């Protein structure tokens, strides 16, 4: 499947810095040859930011590695990757010798990997990493180290502190930024970034993206940004290229691609991505599965899933069709795609008039939390000796009620205590203060046998679905035995063939057919989405009243998330349960909560700072922190994205303060753009403002508060920030 571009496009184009033609990457496997890049031809323009979007397994990482001729063994890359060296003229990267490659990489093209956590040698300080790199390339040490310091401070890091630290002493976001600085220390022309932000919080991702934007201008960089997260790059990239089944199916200027995608896959992808601005009815999953690299479908590789597919698509492999200026789509029927797959970008924020179910309050409360505190003592012996308090206040005084059949979504950055709060709510974590009640009965009293309700009943009623589908199933047990366990424990009236039948029926219900086959599989024989469905079923088989869904969709591919959330909601009705959904991703929380008329709660450093009906929180956030999170959730609509790109981040500090030493007063005052002196001293309570159903913990909600007379906190004057 080779696509041909006209010669003019491949060679000698002054605009392009990297030209890829006929690039194949293959792996030999027991099952046959696996083609993970299939005749790809593409070019990267000078000084652009190119976003490459694809689902996991689409071959996008291979493309990144091939640009540096760094495909891991035993993979083999063939074809041409021409790098147009501004000083020395074009070279073919794939035919460079080892020595030449050594100087080519990092001096011309540098790369940032997905796992910043593991990209540093754990036994070396950060500065050694910089020094050895400079030394290996024979560059002047002092100049380059000065450059490194400049880069680090451009990335809002304290150079002295970061350089003198071991990797484990830095947070994920700091490591990621240090890694970016490390990749830029030799002033490369091109920076290839492979999912550089995937493991980070949304806010951190977004902040890094903004910093990248600045860096690109400042250092005349060409950036190739590879991600599965379409909305993340949509607003920032100059051009977008969409990868499906080991080749590019569409490319073009970012805005045009987003506004009116030509390829049916791109359109379906745009439609399936949960976002904060699109209408809920418009979000739909893509049916079917991504192809296997060992036997990709003949003809157009998308034909098994494409609504427009005809005989021609099955028989022939489509070439790029000119869709517009510098735009192409590998589809015969691209003109008709807009009718076949419709999508809308961005809708006007409509705040519904009717009060949502959450505030109607006619349902019984299932779980209630009162003044809940969970503290972890981390001080060692010597700490205690010197009276140094090292307590992490994971949850610091939270009240929350969850009603029957309600969906409550908790959103916050990692380390804000949302998971701890969730686990406390379902009785897995004992609170240090406050109470957890299940239908009015104290859970921990019951556990100690002091309550009037049997603890077993509570245990059964409160269930969990974890984030990582990989570790939520016992690897040594089949799907069947995993699912039969809850039935065995709680439904002794069912005999083993009843159990078998229940399991089979449910598997079919969630689309895992044939159930007989799936029932006998081990977890490693399932895809991530399938595993997560089994986990959800296992929790539901307990017929619980509340399920804690801890980042339940975050580990899935973007296009599968809507599908999973739909499944959760449809099974909610069947099994009659409530969800406490925890997410760092505003878009997911919004989908689940808004679709079910539920609530969203925002957490910051152990406190709930704002909570209310999903629509209100999304479209009319009140707390400055909610606004920050909202800003960090990129909109798909290019106009909105442009706007968001131009606004400065509404935050003063990128990094979260040390949780063992939380700020006094309002916990957010160290980062809040609206903070005033009074915020340092006094802590705001959750209050409702007039005519609104949501509550926010900010003095700005009270029009007569002393806040309005107080002096604004000026940058640099706060002692805590500096350290």
């Amino acid at each position, binding site marked *: 499947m080779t696509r041909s571009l006209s010669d003019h496009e491949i060679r000698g184009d002054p605009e392009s810095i990297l030209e890829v033609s006929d690039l194949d990457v293959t792996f030999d496997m027991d*099952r046959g040859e696996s083609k993970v890049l299939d005749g790809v031809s593409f070019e990267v323009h000078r000084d652009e930011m190119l976003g490459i979007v694809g689902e996991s397994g689409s071959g996008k990482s291979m493309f990144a590695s091939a640009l540096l001729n760094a495909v891991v063994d035993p993979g083999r890359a063939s074809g041409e990757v021409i790098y147009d060296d501004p000083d020395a003229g074009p070279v073919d990267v794939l035919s460079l010798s080892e020595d030449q490659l050594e100087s080519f990489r990092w001096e011309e093209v540098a790369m940032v990997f997905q796992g910043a956590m593991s990209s540093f040698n754990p036994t070396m300080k950060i500065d050694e990493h910089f020094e050895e790199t400079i030394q290996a390339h024979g560059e002047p040490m002092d100049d380059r180290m000065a450059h490194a310091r400049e880069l680090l401070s451009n990335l809002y890091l304290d150079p002295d502190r970061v350089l003198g630290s071991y990797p484990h002493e830095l947070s994920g976001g700091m490591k990621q930024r240090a890694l970016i600085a490390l990749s830029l220390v030799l002033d490369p022309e091109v920076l290839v970034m492979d999912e550089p932000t995937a493991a980070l919080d949304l806010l951190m991702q977004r902040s890094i993206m903004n910093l990248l934007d600045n860096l690109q201008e400042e250092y005349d960089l060409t950036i190739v940004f590879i991600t599965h997260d379409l909305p993340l790059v949509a607003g920032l990239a100059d051009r977008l290229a969409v990868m499906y089944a080991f080749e590019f199916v569409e490319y073009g200027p970012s805005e045009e691609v987003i506004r009116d995608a030509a390829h049916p896959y791109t359109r379906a992808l745009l439609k399936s991505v949960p976002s904060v601005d699109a209408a809920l009815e418009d979000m739909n999953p893509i049916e079917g599965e991504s192809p296997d690299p060992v036997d990709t479908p003949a003809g157009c590789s998308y034909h098994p899933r494409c609504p427009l597919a005809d005989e021609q698509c099955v028989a022939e492999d489509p070439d790029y069709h000119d869709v517009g200026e510098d735009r192409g789509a590998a589809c015969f029927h691209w003109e008709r795609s807009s009718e076949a797959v419709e999508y809308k970008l961005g809708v006007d924020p409509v705040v519904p008039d009717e009060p949502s179910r959450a505030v109607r309050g006619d349902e019984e409360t299932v779980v209630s939390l009162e003044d809940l505190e969970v503290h972890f003592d981390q001080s060692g012996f010597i700490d205690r000796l010197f009276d140094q308090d090292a307590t992490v206040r994971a949850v610091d005084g939270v009240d929350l009620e969850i009603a029957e059949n309600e969906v409550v979504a908790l959103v916050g950055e990692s380390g804000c205590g949302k998971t701890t709060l969730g686990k406390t709510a379902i009785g897995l974590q004992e609170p240090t203060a406050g109470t957890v009640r299940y239908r009015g009965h104290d859970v921990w009293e019951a556990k100690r046998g002091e309550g009037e309700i049997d603890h077993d009943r509570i245990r059964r009623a409160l269930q969990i679905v974890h984030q990582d589908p990989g*570790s939520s199933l*016992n690897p040594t047990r089949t799907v069947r035995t995993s699912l039969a366990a809850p039935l065995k424990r709680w439904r002794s009236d*069912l005999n083993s063939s009843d159990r078998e039948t229940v399991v089979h*029926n449910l598997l079919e219900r969630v689309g895992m057919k044939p159930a007989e086959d799936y029932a006998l599989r081990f977890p*490693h024989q399932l895809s991530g989405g399938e595993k997560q469905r089994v986990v959800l079923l296992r929790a539901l088989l307990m017929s619980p009243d509340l399920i804690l869904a801890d980042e339940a969709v975050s580990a899935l591919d973007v296009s599968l998330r809507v599908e999973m959330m739909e499944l959760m909601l449809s099974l909610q009705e*069947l099994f009659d349960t409530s969800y406490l959904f925890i997410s760092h991703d505003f878009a997911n929380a919004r989908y689940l909560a808004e679709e079910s008329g539920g609530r969203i709660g925002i957490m910051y450093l152990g406190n709930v700072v704002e909570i209310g009906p999903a629509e209100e929180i999304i479209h009319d956030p009140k707390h400055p922190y909610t606004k920050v999170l909202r800003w960090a959730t990129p909109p798909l609509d290019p106009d909105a994205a442009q706007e968001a790109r131009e606004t400065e981040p509404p935050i003063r500090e990128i990094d979260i303060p040390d949780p063992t030493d939380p700020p006094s007063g309002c916990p957010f005052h160290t980062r809040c753009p609206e903070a005033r002196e009074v915020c340092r001293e006094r802590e705001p309570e959750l209050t409702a403002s007039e005519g609104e159903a949501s509550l926010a913990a900010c003095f700005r909600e009270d029009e007569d508060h002393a806040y309005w007379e107080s002096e604004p906190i000026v940058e640099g004057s706060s002692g805590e920030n500096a350290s």
Partner: protein
Amino acid sequence: MSPTDESSTDGGVQLSDDQLFGQLADSDSVELSGRERLARILDAYVLAPGRVAWNDWRTRLGILIIALFVLAGTVGPRVIEAPATNQAPTNHPPFEGGFGAITEDGGWIDLVQISVGSVSLPWLSFEFPLGADNYGSPIGRQLVHATPDMLEMVVAGAIVSVGFATIIGVTAGYKGGRTDSFLMYITDIVMTMPGLPLVIVIAAIYPPRQAWLVGVILAIDAWPGLARALRSQVLTLREESYVEASRTMGLPSRTILSRDVIPQLMPYVLINAAQAGRKVIFESVALYFLGVLPFTTANWGIMMDTAYSEAFALVDLGNFYQLLWPMSAIVIISFGFILFSQGMDRVFNPRIRARHTKKVGGGDEQPPTE
């Protein structure tokens, strides 16, 4: 096949649990015959691991070696005459007569006829093939007759040390907190005590007279390493989502431990059982060789001691074979144990095992696309 496709079961009407499960259990129920079930269990737990083990020549060799010694320890003493002094000439050399002995009369091996009923068959007869020691006691017979006691020691030692380690390690890891600190403190203390001298002191004061007791005494210092390894495993496993899910489902600790935790530990446990077996052999032989343990049980170490201090096998290299045979037995059986334990690692890997189960669900091999 949209997963969200709702069938007629709910139209907004809430079903009670009983109705719901009744419905789910009702429709075209799946019948599994007892035999099919058994076959499935057999395949998953016996045949598949067997195939995995047999597929690797190292594991195969290990199993064969261990089987050979078990055979020698169980059947051996029944078919081979018990050794006694002066059954053979003193310091009788091994393989007397070399290869020629097969055809010639005399020497270590001869072709003879034996009669089974009325038919007579050719058979081989051995005459002290491995030689005899200083007292004219045939070495081959001694080796075989020492095997049952050796095995008894190994099994007792392995069971005690591994059992102890499992109890301590799993309890510490699963309970955590103070129990954990306390148990680990003890473990560390035992770990840092020099084991052999401790065993020697104990054995010198209370000489063990039974083979199994020797094994148990040797197990005293064999458990801390495994206990620590198991504890850290359990600590990791305890945090695994599926263990937490089981806890959330209200499964009793016993069930969680036996289903979710212990199976993951089996590779460690088995590997260490084999290692403990090797250690028991090493140390018991050393102690018998030193003469620290009473000569109440048969042991290859006693043979070495006799060869070393009675036949002066080191100085008089003509007698070196008297040392060599028991030493070879030790080396071969430990080699078998190590190979076996390495192979177990593969057997317990569900990925490898699934490939050898008959009913494989789907492609389990993902190409490295990312």
